[in-house]
């Protein structure tokens, strides 16, 4: 595919580069087991795959320092492309992009674009739905636990998709939520998990950049779903499945287009990459190539077939199924997605409501 692109662009006489130096700006440490770690794994894959790419990175960059880091990346390190991997970096990215109109930028999870700033995102909500189907089948107490990071639309969307899945299989089950107000905080995650266990939960999912929830659940004999990184090895007998991401699909695609001269610093204004199951950007599994842990497959019963069916439906390029398809009611009784409709991109990106079946505090819940 990439070779065809080169021939095509060479034929068109577009300006291709010889080498590319690429800078990555991370919001957290590369040693976490979540967001930043996954971006860094993708960065390494890019370096291994393309001999003409050289990368540099800086981790745990505070939001106010992004512009300064970009200054150094472009001036001193002579980067051609810079990736900023956090919503909060939008101001620094846009201001720097205006300062360096010849350089190329891509802002992850952002929405502001410029001729030299593209945006990109991979989202888990479909994968969480599949995990929810499994959780609904596995829970005996009818209480599923979820340890959430921050009450922002991205996490709320994931919890809602998860709950829709749980309720589809087990209409009487509830999802209990605890917020830890951090992306990375093993101590708080442990506390939250124990609190959910005390409340009677027996299956666990979460949004936190470590495998603490998996470990605490396993220590108590409960199954859990890994988050972001393959967490099978943290508890091979207790990780049922999880959410996995392949950021390299975006980076390889984007960088090869820059290299071929197809993407330039003038034509990125409408480049917005939104990766779901059908793009291959995200996957469901306890680790790559293990969709469902064989230890738990038997316990799922008929739900296993349902999960596989839904997975194929969502991977279909036409996306014949989506969890956010009406009628969907919020837990306050409001019809948030009418019958016969699907939530569109904007709706998904700005979800604030909790669906029926979610229990617990929900900051910012609309009336």
């Amino acid at each position, binding site marked *: 595919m990439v070779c065809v692109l080169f021939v095509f662009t060479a034929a068109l006489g577009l300006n291709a580069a010889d080498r590319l130096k690429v800078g990555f700006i991370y919001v957290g440490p590369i040693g976490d087991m979540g967001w930043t770690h996954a971006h860094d794994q993708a960065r390494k894959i890019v370096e291994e795959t393309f001999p003409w790419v050289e990368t540099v990175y800086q981790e745990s960059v505070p939001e106010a320092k992004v512009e300064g880091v970009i200054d*150094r990346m472009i001036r001193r390190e002579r980067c051609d492309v810079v990736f900023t991997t956090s919503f909060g970096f939008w101001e620094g990215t846009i201001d720097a992009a205006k300062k360096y109109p010849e350089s190329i930028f891509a802002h992850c999870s952002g929405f502001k674009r410029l001729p030299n700033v593209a945006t990109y995102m991979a989202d888990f909500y479909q994968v969480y739905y599949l995990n929810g189907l499994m959780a609904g089948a596995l829970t005996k107490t009818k209480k599923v636990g979820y340890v959430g990071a921050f009450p922002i639309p991205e996490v709320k969307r994931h919890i809602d998709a998860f709950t829709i899945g749980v309720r589809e299989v087990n209409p009487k089950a509830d999802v209990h939520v605890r917020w830890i107000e951090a992306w990375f905080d093993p101590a708080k995650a442990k506390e939250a998990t124990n609190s959910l266990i005390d409340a009677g939960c027996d299956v666990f999912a979460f949004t936190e950049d470590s495998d603490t929830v998996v470990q605490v659940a396993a220590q108590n004999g409960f199954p859990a779903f890994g988050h972001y990184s393959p967490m099978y090895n943290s508890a091979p007998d207790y990780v049922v499945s999880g959410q996995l991401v392949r950021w390299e699909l975006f980076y390889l695609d984007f960088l090869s287009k820059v290299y071929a001269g197809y993407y330039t610093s003038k034509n990125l204004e409408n480049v917005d990459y939104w990766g779901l199951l059908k793009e291959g950007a995200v996957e469901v599994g306890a680790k790559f190539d293990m969709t469902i842990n064989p230890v738990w497959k038997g316990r799922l019963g008929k739900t296993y077939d349902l999960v596989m069916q839904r997975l194929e439906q969502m991977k279909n390029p036409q996306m014949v199924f989506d969890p956010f398809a009406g009628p969907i009611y919020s837990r306050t009784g409001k019809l948030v997605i009418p019958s016969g409709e699907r939530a569109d991109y904007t709706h998904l990106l700005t979800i604030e409501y909790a669906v029926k079946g979610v229990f617990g505090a929900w900051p910012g819940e609309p009336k």
Partner: protein
Amino acid sequence: MRNDRMRFLKIEKRENPSWKVIVGVSIAAILLAFFIIGFVFVGYGINPVKAYIEILIETVGNVYGLTQIIWQSIPLMLCGVGLLLAFKTSFWNIGAEGQLLMGAVAATWVTLFSGFPGFIMIPMIFAFGFAGGAVWGLLSALLKAKFRVNEVITTLMMNYIALNIVLYLIHGPWKGDEMRGFAYTNSFPESCCLPTIGITYIHWPTLLIGLLSICLIFLILTRTRLGYEVKVIGQSRQAARYAGIPYFRTIFWVMLISGGLAGIAGAGEVAGVHHMLRHPDQVSLGYGYTAIIVAWLARGNPPLVILTSFLFGAIYVAGDVLQLSFGFPFQIVNVFTGLILFFLISSESLMQYRITLRRKDD
């Protein structure tokens, strides 16, 4: 019989270490810390000389580096000189971080919710910022003076309360409707954004206030009765009581100023750099805690705070250089500041004692 050839060194206490000694020993301690860090570089397979040269080029050696150092040293300067005053009276204010955050909260309220007319916004931002930090600091002063509650504990614990107040506000009532559900307030309107030097982040009104505060604290300590009372209480509360110096009233003024200056730093950050209220760990990059070393290193001399805040601003930027150009993990900055503090404390004893040769008839 004494063996004079063995005991040829004598250690005696120095009465009043001269300025030359204090500066000399402090600089030696810092240089020693840099030397030890050189071994960390070697451990990473990096030539320490190359690393330090790169650091010098990228920090003080070019405009970009200098501007970054300066904007980061503004809150260090304000918090630092306020802490210097508190430490002079032996009131161990560990709460500059929380006082800074409360100043930021107050400034945000003025900007987004007060409805003041445009032309008094910026003065009000600073006034309310001062008030926010001052009130926060005064609570600990009250508890110490009236109930003898240890101020290290109260000021430190109140940092966490302030942090959680900010979290509550940005996730709840103050969450901006323009922010796609993310935890930020709306952006401040133009009239509430502090002017900066060119396209840098240097919000000069706050810098000016910082420099004026240093002059003010210097004058207070050297020329006023309050300064005299502060110093006596700092040396000995007993002596102060015998001299009839009222403890609570002095501590009240000290913490009003100390907390207030940290509050101004917080107001400056949100109105000058971020133009919104965001996660507390983004608003303050540990400035309230680093300011403790900044204040301490100035050895009670307010004008030196300019130098020490610049030094620690440079260390922040040096850490960035090490991370990007040499691939160090982000904790390297903490290693730097930790080692410097370690050597400074260890060198304290060197300052207090003098080593000389023993004479024959001793």
